């Protein structure tokens, strides 16, 4: 038998043997919040947002790395789970400098949408306001560590989809940092293929295409003046 039947949020569903609880839920139209999960790369169970309750097991299990089993009863949506999820997001917002108003991802940010979805309207923890630099040395892309949530999606897609192995994690704890090659400037990277998969993977505005940043959206009005001047003073090169 290659299928397993299980219950998720009271709904009886069947899933392929070896599928994750997250896959099974998604197929059945049940949405579980995720941040580090990315379709196409392997799961690491790091963000803890997809934690679910399984009847008979006193530990919470990450839906992304837990395999379906016959007859298990999964709860993905409970007061306790949502409280933990809100706290996780609060911790993330307080950890680095997430300022939606000036972010390239504003309106397209998974962190932001999750917070809206879970009704998070304020953060009760002290903001840490760490100092993180922006690496804008790459020709096409930039990395703003202030907005990084260390989900490692970029690292995984760089290694396992592109196969370049440019991105990695250095440091420990809150000082962990996504690095390029051996902690070099991205612009100096010899292994980067400029494929942009890391930028596609990023759930927030930490990785972005150059030109899209708020600071870069300056309006160049000199051209208007040039045209008006040219017209009025008949400065055309006939």
């Amino acid at each position, binding site marked *: 038998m290659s299928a397993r039947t299980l219950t998720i949020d009271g709904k009886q569903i069947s899933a392929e043997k070896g599928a994750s609880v997250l896959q099974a839920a998604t197929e059945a139209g049940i949405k579980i919040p995720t941040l580090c999960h990315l379709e196409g790369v392997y799961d*690491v*169970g*790091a*963000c*803890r947002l997809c*934690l679910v309750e399984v009847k008979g097991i006193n*530990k*919470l299990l*990450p839906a992304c*790395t*837990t395999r379906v089993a016959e007859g298990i009863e999964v709860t993905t949506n409970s007061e306790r789970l949502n*409280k*933990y999820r*809100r*706290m*996780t997001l609060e*911790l*993330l917002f*307080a*950890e680095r400098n997430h300022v939606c108003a000036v972010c390239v991802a504003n309106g397209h940010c998974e962190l932001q949408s999750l917070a809206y979805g879970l*009704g998070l309207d304020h953060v*009760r*923890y*002290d903001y*840490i306001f760490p100092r993180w630099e922006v690496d804008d040395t790459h020709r096409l892309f930039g990395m703003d560590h202030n907005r990084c*949530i*260390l989900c*490692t999606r970029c690292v995984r897609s760089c290694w396992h989809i592109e196969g370049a192995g440019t991105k*990695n*994690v250095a*440091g*420990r*704890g*809150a*000082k*962990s940092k996504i690095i390029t090659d051996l902690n070099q400037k991205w612009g100096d990277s010899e292994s980067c293929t400029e494929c942009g998969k890391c930028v596609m993977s990023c759930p927030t505005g930490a990785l972005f295409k150059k030109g899209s940043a708020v600071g870069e959206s300056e309006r160049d009005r000199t051209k208007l003046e040039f045209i008006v001047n040219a017209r009025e003073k008949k400065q055309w090169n006939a």
Partner: protein
Amino acid sequence: MQIEDLNAIAEKHIGSRKKIIVRTCMSAGCMSSRADAIKKNLETAVKEQGLDAEVEVRRVGCMGFCGQGPLVGIDGVKEKEILFEHIKPEDANAIIASLKGVESNLEIGDPDHPFFAKQTKIVRANGGIIDPEKIEDYIAIGGYEALHNALTEMQPAQVVEEVTKSGLRGRGGAGFPTGLKWGTVAKSPGAKKYIICNGDEGDPGAFMDRSVLESDPHLVLEGMAIAAYAVGADQGFLYVRAEYPLAISRLQIAIKQAKALGLLGAGIFETPFNFNVDIRIGAGAFVCGEETALMMSVEGKRGTPRPRPPFPAESGLFGCPTLINNVESFANITAIIKKGGDWYASIGTEKSKGTKVFALTGKINNTGLIEVPMGIPLRQIVEEMGGGAPDGRKIKSVQTGGPSGGCIPAEFLDTPVDFESLAKLGSIMGSGGMVVMDDTTNMVEIAKFYMEFCKDESCGKCIPCRAGTAQMENLLNKIIARQATQRDLAKLEELCDMVKNTSLCGLGQTAPNPVLSTLKYFRNEYEELLQPDKFGPAATATK
């Protein structure tokens, strides 16, 4: 190598021994107080005083009474050993002269002191007696006989059976039944299996495993070899932290010697059993003591944990079934094989068998390493063996289990030391750190110390541990600085619950324990520091 050869080595070595043996502790603690100079001076003194023929100066591992070190013990003069304490290199002449009956005013310890008398030694039986750098010393006291017996007289399943019968539980902290773990690995299908010895001891104040590795490296190697035979593995890794250079160098010597004699390698004791051991040196991350992070590190990757299941017994190192045990667990194996599981199970309590090594430190008179039977009341350890707190102070609390453990208040000192009783009090057995605190200790500061440790050592992979510990430390700092209110305390408690239940690995899941246990027993110390809340009573829940 056959058993006759092993016996021949033992006999020859015993025959070459001199009448009097002067044992110099050369473990890391005593070494830092110039034990190497002491040994050198003792050797010179023996020569100069013409006692070459009857006196042997021997390098030994940890004698246990570290607070009184450097230590020199003498056998063969009186019925009991003579123990010199607080020895300096310039005392060497006087020590050797005392062998000829010359009186000295050196500090002599009491071998009947409760610190020694109350111990039951299995793991540390040879510590402070044999030379850890000489395999002959180990063979002379019956070393590698257990491996021979296992290989030639027992089926792998019988070895597992014996370990199961002994009731041994993992000494790394969690107390998982060792026999059950071995049985699972033995039954896991796979042509290639691995043995890992976890020597990444990192709890503040803990030095049990270091001492075992420095004092008796062959005991651990033999235990690993027996385990490999039992589960069907042929490759072992000893993961030792880089902060233990002496342990690493003694292990390297031990592995080389064992290989030279054919006690490791191919066709051990002329059976088809092959077993090799390699050392892997950790780069100083506490989290690498967590088994899945340790395996990542052995594989050469960034040492971060991964979710379990799959458990290492099923899919571990390089995806193969892997048996991973702590140093002390492996160190118990030879005794279990030699004397039987029933004998081992006769020591200790109903659910916690055998002995446990503790590193007794903090505000206590006698610091050092002790090995006691499970179930011994905590009071006997700290008051009788440890001699109570210095300067006539009162003991306030005992911290067990390191950053994953908790603080046990003095009113529970009569609790027996076993896995269940400590867990019931909100602490854990842990790997064996025991830090004693007297009545001058502020428990909020203690909680903050451990929280800071966990924050610094968090690997950064999962959010609750990485960002949660940082916020908890921040809240503790606010409380200590008298800037916090009931509201902040409620936030701290809420975070404890969240980090405990949502973190990925054991480090995060247990990081709140020092806060939870001090809140349980010393809540008043927190509340005394709180300020009135301007905005009225505390709101507890998120919403």
